[in-house]
């Protein structure tokens, strides 16, 4: 027991010592990072807390270094201009980041700036809670002129703007060309059309042609496409938009989720799995990562994805040729692409001087020059003034073209209902527990409540 007491004393003392060290170290490191005396108009030091997710490694995003290096580098550069500002960068993780933000809001101490992306529903969720700082007074006309309509759509909740847009991901359909060649089905793809657009019917035919048993068994082991209900069900609901519907009307005051166009589009997603059986079985339990892995493993011939899948394919067990086409659309509809916009939201500020500096820092990260860093993760900067970063790259040129057909209202409005609710309803559709119409009726109530 004496030994135990001794060990405890050592641990407690060590904790106290290390605890003290840690606090000391934080102060030292922030001073070291600054390298200058703090000077400002009001003479006070301004701490800014920036929370980011791991997206790219290294100072320039070149892969050499840590996932928070690039943000720390921007913090350092910003400090050169504003010596009284100390930016601390905290790295969240994709699994628990949202929980951490939610707890910090509930505890009344959220970060000053945090990265978010449309499909997280952050702008809508936190905008509705009233914890975000509107950025309208800090946006100049030149900024507005620099964003495409699709990007602008993602920045707002109701009549206020909250998001400093930074990057833009454009969704398309990734195609395993090797599988299509193996099945002599390349002609079924819309590769020769200027926008590579196609209808639900054409998509289904292509999926049917590439659903087969490679081992000559009675059941397929390769599927034309992938349908999933967990993690990222927004792709599946996107068919509602591609069919001419949407989650809300354009004035964002009424949900249009039970309109026949949207219902039919979502029904198409269900039919791919249950009626046409061109998706791996058990779609209700599948995640986007499962389908992504199956695509990389040549078990799924095509699935909705972003341009950055190309790098993953190069590292696949057996790399294959990839092509991209537009998401399919309903009969008589124009092609619809989904521009997912990522950027920074600022939480409410009490101090006016700090608010200005927080906004200035957000603008600094997302300015024309600095936002070019997102090229390292094969996506587009949100600002048009960054120009053509990808030169003649055929894949990126195509996605750039496709982005003009983007529908950001969908991804903004998707966050009106919790993702878990969307998942539950789509799982119910896939298992036959509920009809699509009934499910959308359930979600309609939630969304309408949110809109009010």
């Amino acid at each position, binding site marked *: *027991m004496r030994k135990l007491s001794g060990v405890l004393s050592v641990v407690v003392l060590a904790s106290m010592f290390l*605890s003290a060290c840690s606090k000391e170290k934080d102060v030292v490191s922030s001073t070291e990072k600054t390298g200058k005396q703090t000077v400002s108009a009001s003479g006070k030091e301004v701490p800014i807390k920036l929370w980011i997710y*791991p997206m790219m490694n290294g100072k320039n995003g070149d892969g050499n270094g840590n996932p928070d290096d690039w943000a720390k580098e921007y913090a350092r550069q910003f400090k050169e201009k504003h010596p009284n500002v100390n930016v601390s960068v905290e790295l969240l993780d994709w699994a628990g980041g949202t929980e951490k933000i939610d707890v910090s809001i509930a505890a009344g*101490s959220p970060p000053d700036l945090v990265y978010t992306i449309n499909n997280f529903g952050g702008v809508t969720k936190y905008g509705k809670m009233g914890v975000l700082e509107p950025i309208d007074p800090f946006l100049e006309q030149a900024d507005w002129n620099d964003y495409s309509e699709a990007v602008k759509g993602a920045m707002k909740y109701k009549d206020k703007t909250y998001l400093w847009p930074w990057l833009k991901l454009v969704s398309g359909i990734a195609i395993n060309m090797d599988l299509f060649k193996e099945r002599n089905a390349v002609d079924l793809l819309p590769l020769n059309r200027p926008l590579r657009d196609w209808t639900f019917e054409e998509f289904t035919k292509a999926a049917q042609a590439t659903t087969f048993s490679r081992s000559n068994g009675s059941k397929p082991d390769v599927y034309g496409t992938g349908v999933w209900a967990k993690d990222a069900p927004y792709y599946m609901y996107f068919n509602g938009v591609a069919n001419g519907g949407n989650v809300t009307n354009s004035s964002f005051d009424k949900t249009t989720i039970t309109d026949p166009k949207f219902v039919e589009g979502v029904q198409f997603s269900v039919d791919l799995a249950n009626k046409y059986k061109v998706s791996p079985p058990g779609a209700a339990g599948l995640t986007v990562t499962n389908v992504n892995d199956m695509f990389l493993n040549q078990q799924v011939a095509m699935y909705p994805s972003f341009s950055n899948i190309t790098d993953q394919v190069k590292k696949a067990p057996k790399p294959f040729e990839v092509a991209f086409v537009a998401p399919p659309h309903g009969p008589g509809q124009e092609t619809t692409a989904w521009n997912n916009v990522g950027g920074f939201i600022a939480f409410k500020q009490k101090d006016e001087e700090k608010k200005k500096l927080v906004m200035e820092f957000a603008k600094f990260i997302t300015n024309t020059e600095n936002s070019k860093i997102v090229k390292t993760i094969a996506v587009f900067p949100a600002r048009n003034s960054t120009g053509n970063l990808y030169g003649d790259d055929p894949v990126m040129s195509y996605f750039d073209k496709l982005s003009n057909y983007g529908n950001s209202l969908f991804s903004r409005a998707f966050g009106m209902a919790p993702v878990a609710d969307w998942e539950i309803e789509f799982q119910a559709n896939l298992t036959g527990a509920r009809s699509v119409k009934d499910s959308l009726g359930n979600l309609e109530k939630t969304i309408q409540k949110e809109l009010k």
Partner: protein
Amino acid sequence: MRKFNLPTIASVLLLTIWALLLLFPFYWMFLNAFKPTTSVIQTPPDLSWVNLTIGNFKKLTLEPISWAWTFNSFLVAISGMIGNVILCSMAGYAFAKKKFPGKRLIFWFIISIMMTSTQVIMVPLFILIRDMGLLNTYFGLILPILVSPFAVFLTKQFMQTIPGELISSAKMDGCSEWRIFYSIILPISKPVLAIVAIFGFITQWNDFLWPLLATESRDMRTLQVGLASMQLQNVDYGLVLAGSVWTMIPVIVLFVSFQRFFVRGITIGAVKG
């Protein structure tokens, strides 16, 4: 010599198959931790012992921050373990052998905490630790885990079975209260204390949510949280599996070393002595 009749052989066979099935995910994890990421996503799974590499572990261990995370995890888990053993055994003893007003009420209050989800208390706990100025410190990580209601319950149940005559005799011999606890109760309670220690270590070692909330800088993260933050948008499965093996090693060592206590721990409190 033991007789091997048909039912015995059948049950042994069935249990062996069941055990192998349960072990298969661990086998797959260990194997693929030593393979390139491309092998992990193959279907059917690549279970061959070829193409092995220590690249994933190299990547993990060459990051100096991984060692800081490992140290933090050990510090937190060991502190939690020791805190649980000492503080909960004291509480357990008081509930088992002492009479004081409101004893039953307080005990049931502690039991009710066991039934409360951790997530429910996260926000008040976060506010408390923040207001104490302990966020992003070792104290902030350790303080909330020093006492566990489950450990109090466990020790109380065990100590109830210790005959009261032992304590009376000690008192008659002039033992002080502290001496009775220190020299009589604790040595007898070694089995339950071992269980409390093991459970305390494993619970804190595997904890994700509190270290995520209570830490801000990368060097203050524990292994579980740190490894999660190494994942970019495209998952590096090889690294994930190497990290999983890395985090499992202390738990496996602990389990193998104290296996007999685990079995005992399952039955403690189940039968009233």
